[in-house]
């Protein structure tokens, strides 16, 4: 195999890898797909239009997710109806999610992506990942992981900036 051919193969492989990852993941500026089409378990809020929405992807086995729940609950109570916290569980078994929620009760909306179709569309890079959407449903801020008070302050600052 000559060098030129080898270079072509490496180049094509890299290009395919870059494009497949860049096209899939939801990023800042993108619109969240229509949640109604993903057959999520649980009741979605009647309308998300015009509201600031925090969509949080989490799993029961994820320790930072457990740390983030009290903060998410605090945000829901702080902002009331102006902000919707929507936690999307990605556990394979509903029982694991229910056990987690019994241990970490919350007031915000929790739905389960039982078929893992939404999460496969959004492709979060880590657990948890949260997207803060503006009133038009576009992603304005993206959080990978949860880093305690630092992330909490960022949430508040970002939500406040969107509410202005």
């Amino acid at each position, binding site marked *: 195999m*000559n060098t030129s*051919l080898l270079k*072509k*193969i490496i180049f*094509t*492989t890299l290009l*395919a*890898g870059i494009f497949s990852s860049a096209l899939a993941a939801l990023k800042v500026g993108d619109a969240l797909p229509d949640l109604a089409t993903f057959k999520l378990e649980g009741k979605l809020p009647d309308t998300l239009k015009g509201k600031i929405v925090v969509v949080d*992807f989490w*799993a029961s*086995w*994820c320790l930072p997710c457990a740390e983030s729940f009290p903060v998410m609950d605090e945000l829901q109570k702080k902002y009331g109806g102006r902000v919707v916290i929507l936690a999307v569980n*990605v*556990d*394979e078994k509903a029982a694991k999610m229910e056990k987690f929620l019994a241990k970490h009760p919350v007031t915000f909306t929790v739905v389960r992506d039982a078929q*893992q179709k939404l*999460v*496969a569309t959004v*492709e*979060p*890079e*880590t*657990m948890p*990942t949260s997207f803060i959407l503006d009133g038009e449903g576009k992603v304005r801020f993206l959080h990978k992981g949860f880093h305690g008070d630092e992330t909490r302050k960022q949430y508040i600052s970002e939500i406040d900036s969107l509410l202005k």
Partner: protein
Amino acid sequence: MKRIPLILLAAMAMTLTSGCANVKPWQREHLADYTMQPDRDPLGTSQAEHIWFSREEASGGSGVGGGGCGCN
């Protein structure tokens, strides 16, 4: 050598990369399990390392030193 079309190169690239296991972040339940942690039993790990470096003499590593007598 005959020129190889780009589509054939793309097919080859896809074949070469298809063997890679890609565990998505939301599929890591079993990897995140407590039993998958290499340091879940610190005392057991230090004992195992002590035995290892004693038996293997100077080839131990993992932050321990010594010449293989097992006496430190």
